């Protein structure tokens, strides 16, 4: 008994309180989202709010279980838990039930389970266990690569279902790697690649490449500050470019502007190589390499998009990225979602007064679009409060993570933060049209047993670890 008393004393009550408040607010919102006047009883088991109630009760039991288990269990069994969940993801591809073209669910009679929701805490455990003894070593490639593999394995398996939303969530674990010392350069490059990817699809490649070249020359000028030399370099490039252009225009006629640009860049590079070599101008070298890399990347993205993808796949990507609106499919959802949130105004329409909801205008309103109900019925005030709750929870978790003595607990804590943060930001961002539509649930709010249980286990393992933070884990 003494032990459980210790756990109760050590566990963070503020987080538990936040958790309870969110689950209960979530449940009332699901009630509002599926509310219909014939089934007023909130415990009506034929309705989603009734079922959610059962899942909430179960999740409380689950939370207690997670907390009474010895904290060392999670460290020792981290890899086994990870292995089991990976195995389930593989089984899913073979035996999963296909719903809307994706094999994301196991079906056992009336109960459906979505293993990717549970793979999240499994991956967090494995990552924490792996980095436990390699804290400050994330600058070394041989330490980084296995860590990346731990993250990519479940990510790839979920993408095979396919479930893009969950896959993206797994990538949020890179935030943990960042906190543990992985070079920010990796992130900046990553972000640049994402940005370039969007820009490639969005604007004319030539303009984009010209823009990059201008930026590169600007950076080079900033670096050398030698006007004469700079002008010579600039001149060489212009000459090569113009020469090639004329050659193609009158003689070859088959290169095309993009190839001319690429060859110009490579040839100018050869000319600059002498200068770089003599002066040991490492910065110029990197600027050049970055430019060349970006332009090759743009060309390959463009090629892949226009030549490898089928037209319907291109459509899907474009709709998903929001370049095309599809008033029947996802575009329609977002429009309806923004309308219902926007119509909430400052104070909202009041609980159960949401009219958009009643007409079933927003699909998936109890799952991925649950925030619509908050926005419509509770207005800006309610939305502010919900975002505030998340902000409070996330900052509280950062505080808890930072006070850990054990590396394992701290890294796991950042895993929890990354997952919850990504879900929170993407889900609400999507509902209000800030981000493209990526169907992932809002933690503790959305309807569904798997996601609720997954998030509960994720959070409570951390609370359990935190409760015995004074003990040293082996």
């Amino acid at each position, binding site marked *: 008994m003494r032990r459980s008393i210790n756990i109760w004393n050590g566990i963070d009550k503020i987080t538990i309180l936040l958790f309870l408040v969110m689950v209960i607010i979530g449940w009332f919102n699901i009630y509002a989202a599926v509310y219909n*006047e*014939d*089934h007023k009883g909130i415990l009506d088991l*034929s309705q989603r709010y009734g079922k959610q109630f059962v899942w909430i009760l179960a999740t409380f039991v689950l939370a207690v279980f997670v907390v009474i288990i010895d904290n060392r269990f999670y460290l020792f069994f981290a890899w086994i838990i990870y292995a089991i969940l990976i195995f389930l993801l593989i089984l899913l591809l073979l035996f999963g039930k296909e719903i809307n073209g994706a094999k994301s669910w196991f079906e056992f009679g009336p109960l459906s389970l979505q293993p990717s929701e549970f793979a999240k805490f499994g991956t967090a455990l494995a990552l924490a266990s792996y980095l436990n003894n390699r*804290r*400050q070593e994330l600058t070394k490639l041989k330490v980084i690569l296995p860590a990346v593999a731990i993250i990519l394995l479940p990510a790839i398996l979920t993408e095979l279902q396919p479930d893009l939303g969950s896959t993206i969530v797994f990538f949020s674990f890179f*935030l943990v790697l*960042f*906190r*543990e*010392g992985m070079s920010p350069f990796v992130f900046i490059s990553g972000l640049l690649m994402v940005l370039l990817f969007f820009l490639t699809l969005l604007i004319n490649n030539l303009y984009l490449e010209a823009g990059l070249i201008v930026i590169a020359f600007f950076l080079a000028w900033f670096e050398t500050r030698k006007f004469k030399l700079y002008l010579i370099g600039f001149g060489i490039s212009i000459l090569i470019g113009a020469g090639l252009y004329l050659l193609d225009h009158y003689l070859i006629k088959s290169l095309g502007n993009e190839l001319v640009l690429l060859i110009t860049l490579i040839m100018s590079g050869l000319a600059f190589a002498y200068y770089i070599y003599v002066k040991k101008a490492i910065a110029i070298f990197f600027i050049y390499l970055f430019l060349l890399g970006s332009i090759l990347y743009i060309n390959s993205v463009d090629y892949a998009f226009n030549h490898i993808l089928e037209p319907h796949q291109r459509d899907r990507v474009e709709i998903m990225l929001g370049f095309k609106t599809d*008033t*029947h499919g996802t575009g*329609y959802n977002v*429009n*309806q979602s*923004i*309308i*219902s*949130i*926007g*119509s*909430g*105004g*400052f104070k909202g*329409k009041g609980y159960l007064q949401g*009219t*958009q909801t*009643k*007409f*079933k*205008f927003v699909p998936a309103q109890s799952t991925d679009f649950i925030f619509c109900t908050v*926005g419509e019925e509770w*207005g*800006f005030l309610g*939305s*502010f409060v919900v*975002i*505030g709750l*998340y*902000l409070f929870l*996330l*900052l509280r978790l*950062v505080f808890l993570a*930072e006070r850990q003595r054990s*590396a394992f607990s701290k890294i796991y804590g*950042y895993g929890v*933060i990354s997952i919850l*943060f990504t879900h*929170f*930001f993407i889900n*609400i*961002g999507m509902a*209000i*049209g*800030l981000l493209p539509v990526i169907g992932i649930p809002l933690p503790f709010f959305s309807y569904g047993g798997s996601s609720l249980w997954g998030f509960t286990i994720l959070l409570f393992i951390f609370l359990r670890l935190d409760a015995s933070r004074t003990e040293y884990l082996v």
Partner: protein
Amino acid sequence: MKDTFVIRKYVIIGLIVLAAVALIIKLFIIQVVKDTYRLSADNNVLRYITQYPARGLIYDRNGKLIVFNQAAYDLMVVPVQTGKMDTALFCSDLGITKDVFRERMKTARNYSRRAPSVFLKQISAETYAKFQEKIFMYPGFYVQPRTLRKYSKPVAAHLLGYVSEVDEALIKKDPYYKPGDYIGKLGIEEAYEKDLRGRRGVKIYLVDVYSRIKGSYADGNLDTLAVQGSDIISGINLDLQEYGEHLMQNKTGSIVAIEPKTGEILALVSSPDYDPGLLVGRIRTENFARLQADTIFKPLFNRAFMAKYPPGSTFKPVNGLIALQEKVIVPSTKFNCDHGYLFVACHSHSSPLDLKGAIMNSCNSYFCQTYRRILENPKYGSVSEAYEKWRGYLNEFGFGKKLGSEFVNELPGLVPSSAYFDRYYGKGGWKALTVISMAFGQGEIETTPLQMANYTAAIANRGYYYTPHIVKSIGADHRIDPRFTIRHQISIDSANFEEVILGMEAAVNGGAGATARIAALNGITVCGKTGTAENPFGENHSVFIAFAPKDDPKIAIAVYVENAGFGATYAAPVASLMIEKYLKGEITNKPLEQRMLELNLVDSLKVSETKH
């Protein structure tokens, strides 16, 4: 251990705070700054009008239109938007009383004050035209266009099913449906509901306080278009269907005709039937109640796959087939018949007969002895084991189980298991003679006309069938449910089928003793078998199964005429006329047709029913 990356803690905190701030700013813009979205909060300003898609059309196999749509108008009301108006004028325009008005308003308010509900269903086009001009005088009311079913001919009610409004229970079960939606019931309408219904759309309009539409909201960008339902090409031959119903007038019974090569149902008649137009629109409820109240003729009861009859002598070919396959007889095996066998009587004919002669003459003795050999086959350890083997063959023909057509309420019929007899007579307490009546299709066995037609198709195909189905293809891309393209092979050699078919050919086209000569046609070799289904409640039912032409079967048919006695008398001529109609398009034996049309088996039934 020193944490060299402690500053990154603040980067992460910064990221989280930044994300939250970004969300709040965007929310502030859409919820507080911009009023475009807020407008939609105000139901006085926006009106959502559901765009009901036109239900898919239904065609016959030759592209003749069977079911199409006609316009109708529902008068809708949104209680919170109603205001001062001339109620008396309103009521007189619509031809309703003030009490009805008050009651309807109360119902609408009880349903929802904000959501629209139907005030008056399916008002006529004239009322609509008159009303539309004055609609601005009645705030809160508007007209919603709907479509109702219309039929090119008053036939095929049982095949087509009907369309009705969804009820409470269904709305609970399937979240797609909302009050006021229509849904297909029975027949094609139910089986292909998901294809036929299409998808609802919604148009958002700006309306003023007088309920006048001021234009579409947000340039229609937020509207969704309704998607029209898929058209369906059925396998029905509309002319044949109509002719079949015509022939069956004043009789009770059923006709099922199948194209053997595909399993497509060419015609499906259940008599008495009703005009499908009776179950459309506002008259539906009343007519439905009336049809349901007719407990003597049960016009809503689909005999074709819900009535169970003993198959009678039409069952003899299948017993012949099983006996050949089990090698207990060969085609030349002969059996004596002295006006019967043991306690089973037979009519007078030449004796002894071989298999062909026995089918042609429909000899009971022959099949009793054949059936004994099947059940007393020394290959099997016991009668019960041999019986189960026999039952296995029957299942292969589709007896004793649901065939799996689109008809949800199709009955499986009955081929009792040996356990059934064990329960009655004790294990080992029954012998071949105990169940001998099944040799000629009497006793415990029960089949539906649909099963009999399918069985005939399997014989016509010499050993296989496709699950009978009404629909040939769905939608513009001509989809078909894959379960109808599976070939069900029966484990009986096609050579054995040829032997039995010779007997069925002789039954129609043979010389003295042929039982179904009345069904013979000029220029077409019809193969058939008569049957008489025992009816403990009155006159026996006349049964006939047939297919034609013999060598390249285009039609397989089963005909049941209730209370008509021996199979050859009524069922065989009806089948023969149907075959000729389908294959030739015209009837050569006009006197026979006339006789069948004039035959009235219903009035006498009415008299006897009233006597009881």
